[in-house]
């Protein structure tokens, strides 16, 4: 990020990064139409640490995909840093996903053929960063998640926790405005999940906005703001526990 961008970020600190207004999404399969989202209003400002919780089928994954610009809503308006997402071209959306959004998935979604550091390099490659610079920044990102020594390993040679750290490094490598994590601890044991959670919550210190989608109640306890959704609607949105120290163990 150039100094100019940094200044813009400071000025925009209270501006919403994400602004959803009456977002709806319905899937039609054959004769049946399923309304996954039935009018979501959500405003996320820079630097927030937020969890979206809800039972299976509540529409939280769909919401996540819309937030990540992987899916177009059926109706409603989505502004990302003020820009209406519906108006962005497909190539523009790809660039937005690459530079502004970092994804962390439940099943890690690392490419098995690539080494850890190459997986982390992926977003930079599509962003047009030169090879040497890519490697340098990817190694930095790995260092940040505590995996500097494991960069040459393939995903299959890493433990679940390590894989998720690689995925987080990949999400962070472009210094995105928002990190979207879909069930980041879902495939991990309690202890490892705890460490991953700690890593994600620590990102707030660096000024990142972190949105986690989960049904793990322990995540709900760690965040400043909790959004609960059910049947495609927001049921509750607010601070769970005021004064929670997101960095605390």
């Amino acid at each position, binding site marked *: 990020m150039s100094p100019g961008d940094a200044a813009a970020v400071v000025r925009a600190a209270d501006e919403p990064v994400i602004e959803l207004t009456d977002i709806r999404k319905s899937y039609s399969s054959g004769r049946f139409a399923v309304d996954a989202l039935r009018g979501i209003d959500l405003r996320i400002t820079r630097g927030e640490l937020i969890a979206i919780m809800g039972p299976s089928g509540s529409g939280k*994954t769909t919401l996540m*995909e819309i937030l*990540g610009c*992987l*899916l177009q809503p059926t109706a409603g308006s989505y502004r990302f840093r003020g820009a209406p997402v519906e108006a962005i071209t*497909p*190539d523009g959306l*790809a*660039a937005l*996903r*690459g*530079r502004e959004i970092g*994804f962390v*998935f*439940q*099943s890690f*979604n*690392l*490419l098995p*053929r*690539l080494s850890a550091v190459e997986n982390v390099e*992926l*977003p930079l*490659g*599509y*962003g*047009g960063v030169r*090879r040497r610079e890519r490697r340098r920044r990817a190694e930095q990102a790995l260092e940040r998640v505590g995996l500097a020594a494991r960069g040459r390993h393939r995903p299959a040679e890493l433990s679940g926790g390590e894989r998720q750290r690689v995925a987080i490094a*990949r999400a962070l490598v*472009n210094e995105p405005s928002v990190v979207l994590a*879909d*069930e980041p601890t*879902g495939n991990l044991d309690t202890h490892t999940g705890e460490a991953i959670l700690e890593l994600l919550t620590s990102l707030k210190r660096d000024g990142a906005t972190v949105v986690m989608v989960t049904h793990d109640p322990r995540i709900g306890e760690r965040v400043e703001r909790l959004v609960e959704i059910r049947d495609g609607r927001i049921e509750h949105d607010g601070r769970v526990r005021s004064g929670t120290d997101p960095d605390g163990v």
Partner: protein
Amino acid sequence: MRVADAAREALRTLRVSWLRTALTLFGIVWGTASVVFLISWGLGVRAMMEDCYGRVGRNLVQVFPGQIGSDFTPAADRRLLWITLDDVDAIRARVRLSSLVLPESQTFRSVGFRQTTTSLNIRGVVPENVELRGVEVSAGRAITRDDLHHRRRVAVLGSKARERLLGPHGGVGSSIRIAGQPFTVVGLLSRVGMQLWQDGPSQLDEQVWIPFSTLAGFGKRQGRDGDVVDNIMLSVKDRETRKAAEHEVRAILAERLRVSVDDQEAIRIMSPLDALEKIPLDQLGGLLFTLGATTLVIGGVGILTMMLDSVQQRRQEIGVRLAVGARRRDILTQFFLETFVITGLGGLLGIALGLAGCLALASLATADLIPQPIVRWQTIAIALGVMTFVGFASGLVPARRAARIDPSVTLRTE
């Protein structure tokens, strides 16, 4: 993502699933090798045919006198025609499209050497016959103008005639008998090899050449205006002007013999070039190319199948790539390049294999009628061209399918 990165990615993918890659590659390798080998072999067949038809003489055209055709005269009066040396001289003087015009007569006679006697085809020739036939004198000398003038009893033997008559004991200087008269062997011809077209009853290697004038004294017919000639031989300048040259000669001769120029029976003109043109060498070449190209296309279908399967298996990877910022175009490029790299690799291996096949066959082929593959750079260019087309065609569909994959579906955890 730049093309170099995508190419590197493609190579990596192919390396990881190397067994599948190798199996798919086989189709392309075999196809390209087939194109290279079959085209080269076809060219070899053509060259061999041209060689074997051309051995009788370079761009040879022969003119035989016949009988006036029934369309031009009442059946009872079908006059027999003959050609004399004067006719040959007249043609030589007036023809423009032929560099060599010479007479030849032939007969079978018993030929003896020491205790051996055999029947051989005796040809009465002029000195230029060596040039027209394109043969080499391996020992001694050819028939000279002097021999002709003095009606000398000298003979030049073809390689097989020499084997049959002289065996290992005789050579230049040996005395032989032709029709009971003593002759001296003054020269030997080097081996010509199998002819697919021959004039008269013998191949060049089996002939005994003596001066034309000497043969004329063997009781052959005598014409009023000079010695009778069995046939006239011409070497035309090139194949393109052959028909025109034939027409020219026919016109001159028809005028002298007072027959119609349209009377094909009175003046018969033959050429190995006619026979060669009747062989469907172009069709053969086309067939061989089609065979090779079809094999290559089938190889391309194999790649198409593999890549479609690969796209299906790597839906998740495609989803991840889209999520981290890949444009549809990047995915398209990636899969397209993968197909292209594999086709290119297979193609280069195939060209190498095809060339190796050609070299192997060339090293084996020694017999007269076995074609030697002829490798031209154009053949390799054609193989590369067809290969590129196949790679392009079989890469397009999988790449487009990959680029259309919906990331939100592939990234769902269950």
